[in-house]
């Protein structure tokens, strides 16, 4: 309560108590230091079941089902499609999902102290022009009302709680993700120039009056002049623009890895710039970098969408064969729980799964799929008794360590209104950035748990020297195909365009990999757009 006179003595007192703590702790620790064993779990996408598509050794069909529309894949695009079907009055649809739960990359785990994300974990405030997404957020009460000027008012409890970001740099934590202490004037000048340039890109429109960089990506201008940026890497572009400051480049590299899995050496410059210029920050006044987040990450959004597939989804079901017949599509599905196969006959099928899966289900897709690169990811959720933070800036939602191999960690309890937590729960993110995603993927499944434990601790130790002794539990989550990575030539390339085309007006496609970047907004729109395609085409037919 009341502070009164005593704040002014705090420095002296601080010193004394610090000295006291330092003197006492070794004695306490000596008594306490038992051999602490860390509970270690490894989870991941069900690649074992998925890989059965390669051999296709499944039991004979023993059951038949009929449905008007079949959605294959229960990630955000599939769930969004289910929502759109429902909104348009179509109730005769079914969704099949390989995993035990729907949600895809927007899934979560939970321990006794907190929920935590197993993939995507935030949604930036949508652009003002993204009315469909704003409408969804309004439906789910994430937008509570619209103010008198027409700006949406977001629920305070679902926006990232302050303080939101910090960077560990030169042995201390500082606010924000850009290094600020001890930069050379040259660093500062380049940072300024970079952000000015990004601001220009953000506002720039093509001859057709559309933004050069927009979300969803298909809304971007078809003006050709910026498309050449898709042919070079972000690193090449930075070099052309004489961005040479290692601090700036490390920051841009961090951003690219965070959104695309791959760093500036491997992603297209168009995609790299899109990261900075795609979001217009125009849906609310003065909240440029605010994002929506939840302890369980985007699994919250998936949870909202789940109600549209209630009683209409089959989990642990793997589609293994699709054939187009005169009166519809026949889809063979393996029920992994009951070890049997069923055949679903549908009028139309929506493939809301990634193209590396489609290549095993549809003819002529293998070649197209070769151009789709998916960066593997590793997430590690740690339960720690104490972070051993050096206290230079308080724990934030996003905590990045300069010079680390991974992308830092999220405080999973950031969105809690509680005063104190008995244990802290953090989720560490690591993307495998290389020119050979397939090789990284092999490494992901080949290396043992000690290897991953070491990777995580070596990284976190940079800022938290005794993290290993403070950790009680680790849950490592492996994502073999973490996200689509927009390598040069991909976003505006042929393979992506071909893969998105419907087959015989029977089989349709929706997935964020067809947009080219793996963000919630793209998946959300993919689902809606595919439903429109199906329903409007069938209206034409009849």
């Amino acid at each position, binding site marked *: 309560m*009341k502070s009164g*006179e005593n704040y002014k003595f705090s420095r*002296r*007192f601080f010193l004394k*108590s610090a000295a006291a703590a330092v003197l006492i702790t070794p004695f306490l620790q000596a008594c306490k230091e038992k051999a602490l064993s860390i509970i270690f779990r490894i989870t991941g996408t069900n690649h074992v079941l998925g890989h059965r598509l390669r051999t296709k050794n499944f039991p004979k069909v023993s059951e038949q089902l009929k449905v008007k529309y079949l959605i294959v894949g229960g990630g955000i695009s599939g769930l969004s499609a289910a929502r759109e079907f429902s909104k348009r009055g179509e109730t005769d649809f079914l969704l099949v999902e390989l995993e035990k739960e729907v949600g895809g990359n927007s899934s979560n785990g939970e321990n006794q102290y907190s929920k935590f994300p197993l993939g995507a974990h935030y949604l930036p405030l949508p652009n003002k022009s993204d009315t469909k997404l704003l409408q969804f957020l309004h439906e789910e009460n994430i937008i509570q009302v619209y103010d008198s000027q027409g700006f949406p008012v977001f629920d305070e409890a679902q926006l990232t709680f302050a303080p939101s970001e910090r960077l560990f740099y030169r042995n201390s934590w500082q606010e924000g993700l850009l290094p600020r202490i001890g930069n050379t004037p040259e660093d500062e000048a380049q940072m300024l120039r970079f952000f000015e340039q990004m601001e220009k890109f953000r506002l720039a429109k093509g001859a057709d009056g559309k933004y050069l960089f927009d979300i969803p990506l298909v809304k971007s201008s078809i003006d050709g002049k910026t498309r050449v940026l898709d042919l070079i890497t972000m690193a090449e572009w930075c070099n052309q623009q004489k961005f040479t400051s290692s601090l700036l480049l490390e920051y841009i590299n961090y951003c690219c890895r965070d959104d695309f899995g791959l760093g500036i050496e491997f992603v297209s410059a168009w995609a790299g710039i899109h990261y900075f210029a795609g979001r217009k920050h125009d849906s609310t006044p003065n909240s440029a970098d605010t994002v929506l987040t939840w302890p369980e990450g985007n699994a919250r959004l998936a949870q909202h969408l789940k109600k549209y597939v209630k009683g209409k989804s089959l989990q642990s079901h793997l589609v293994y064969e699709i054939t187009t017949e005169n009166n519809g599509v026949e889809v063979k599905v393996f029920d992994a729980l009951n070890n049997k196969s069923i055949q679903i006959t549908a009028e139309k099928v929506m493939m809301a799964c990634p193209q590396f899966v489609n290549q095993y289900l549809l003819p002529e897709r293998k070649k197209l799929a070769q151009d789709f690169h998916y960066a593997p990811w590793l997430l590690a959720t740690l339960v720690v008794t104490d972070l051993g933070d050096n206290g230079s800036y308080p724990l934030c939602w996003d905590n990045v360590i300069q010079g680390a191999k991974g992308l830092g960690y999220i405080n999973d309890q950031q969105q809690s209104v*509680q005063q104190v937590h008995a244990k802290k729960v953090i989720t560490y993110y690591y993307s495998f950035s290389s020119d050979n995603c397939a090789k990284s993927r092999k490494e992901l499944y080949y290396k043992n748990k000690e290897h991953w434990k070491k990777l995580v601790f070596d990284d976190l130790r940079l800022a938290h020297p005794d993290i290993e002794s403070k950790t009680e539990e680790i849950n490592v989550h492996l994502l073999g195909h973490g996200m689509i990575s927009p390598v040069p030539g991909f976003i505006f390339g042929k393979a992506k365009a071909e893969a998105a085309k419907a087959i015989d007006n029977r089989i349709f496609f929706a997935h964020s990999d067809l947009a080219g970047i793996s963000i919630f907004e793209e998946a959300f729109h993919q689902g809606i757009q595919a439903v429109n395609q199906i329903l409007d085409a069938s209206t034409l037919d009849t």
Partner: protein
Amino acid sequence: MGKKFLKFEYLLLFAVFTIATCGLVYELVAGTLASYLLGDSVKQFSFIIGVYLFAMGVGSYFAKFLTKNMLNTFVEIEILVGLIGGLSSVVLFLLFESVYSFQLILYLLVFITGCLVGLEIPLLMNILKDKVAFRDLVSNVFTFDYIGALLASILFPLVLVPKLGIMGTSLFFGMINISIAIVLCFSLKKELKNVYLLRFKAIGAFVTLVVVAFFSDSILSYTEGNLYGENIIYSNTTPYQRIVLTHNKSDYRLYLNNNLQFSSKDEYRYHEALVHPAMAMAKNTKNILVLGGGDGLAVREILKYPEVQKITLVDLDEGMTKLFKTNTILTGFNENALNNPKVQVLNQDAFVWAKSTQSKFDVVVIDFPDPSNYSLGKLYSLNFYNTIKSILAKDAVIVVQTTSPFFAPKSFWCINKTLAETFPQVDAYHAYVPSFGEWGFSIAINSFETTFNTVNRRAEKLRFYNYQFDQFNYFAKDMISNDVEINRLDNQILVRYFDEEWGKL
């Protein structure tokens, strides 16, 4: 003979190395302590380095007068340096609060340590001069001296202070210093005279340092007592905070995390101002909620109204409410309020509890710690007040302690503005509490059914509040700040204001 001599020489050179390291560490300890305790680090470090070097010069000068038993003297000096240097930080800590001329003692200690270290090198060179070529001697002695200095200056900020703390560092190096002396006592027993006495001195000094290190805990709590300037009669660290109760003449003071919570002399001013305006203007006062305020003093005031049927007190810290239910001095202050049958004490997180409770309250008294960190800042956010609004009766009144409008006007008006975003009627008022200074409150009414000047009921025998609300809600120019934002969970702007304003003091 050659081999043995080599051992002799290297042993002494190793001693030089250690002396240099320890000497510099003592110097850095003194510099750090001085700049922490006295401020102005450039000045303090500069003076201390100067005095230390000068003292070494003085020491070197006097070295020429030491001609007898040089090796014994060398070992004795080594013990003395360890003892004085090692204890220096403890002594300085102990004396800081009570001694008038702290700086004199500080520089005296630096001077003595410097002198002793300054004595050692010439002394050592004299010991070795007949055994080693002068060229080698000078070069080796200084090489080890400077390497030691480098090692100390690198280790000190990077390892020693972060790992051992100031007191720990000086004690630790004192022990190292003396252990060298002990090693010398044992390995040079033939060259030394009176070797048993010397060993006794060395081991005695070492034991002294170990004992001091072991009791550093209570030494610190003794200095803590000095810090408060009052006698500590109770102290306890709960999982949430450190509770300290002090007594000085007729005044008792309670500190939470070293911030004054109340002084028994004037707390009635604070608690009457906190409770009675809201109790007077509320339409009903049957069901009352107190958040924070585990000392039960606000509850004591509320119990002065007979129509109150139920008081729910939600305070996170069980240690605190238990203390105020059981300690006889403290139950004397709150008139045993927390044991009153009308009172229900819940040791829960107020925010979490408020989100789940089904009750509706007529008056809510919010007496949380100041928003000095991001956790506490949540308890002053728009989302929190909206949560509170959902557990209010239609015409309820809520009052919030909102720090000092004089010391922290931005913080004060930021909370007020945040409340105004949630409640239809909001006002602010303040009272003078001598031990705190000018202190303020924000008050809100959940409807338009009553006004701030309404007095629906009065308690008898108040010593401070007179039920003239309009005498308390006037703010002079120096307590007003208009340019503030609303405090939300996603901006926590209040914590920034608060840090800025109290940080200035």
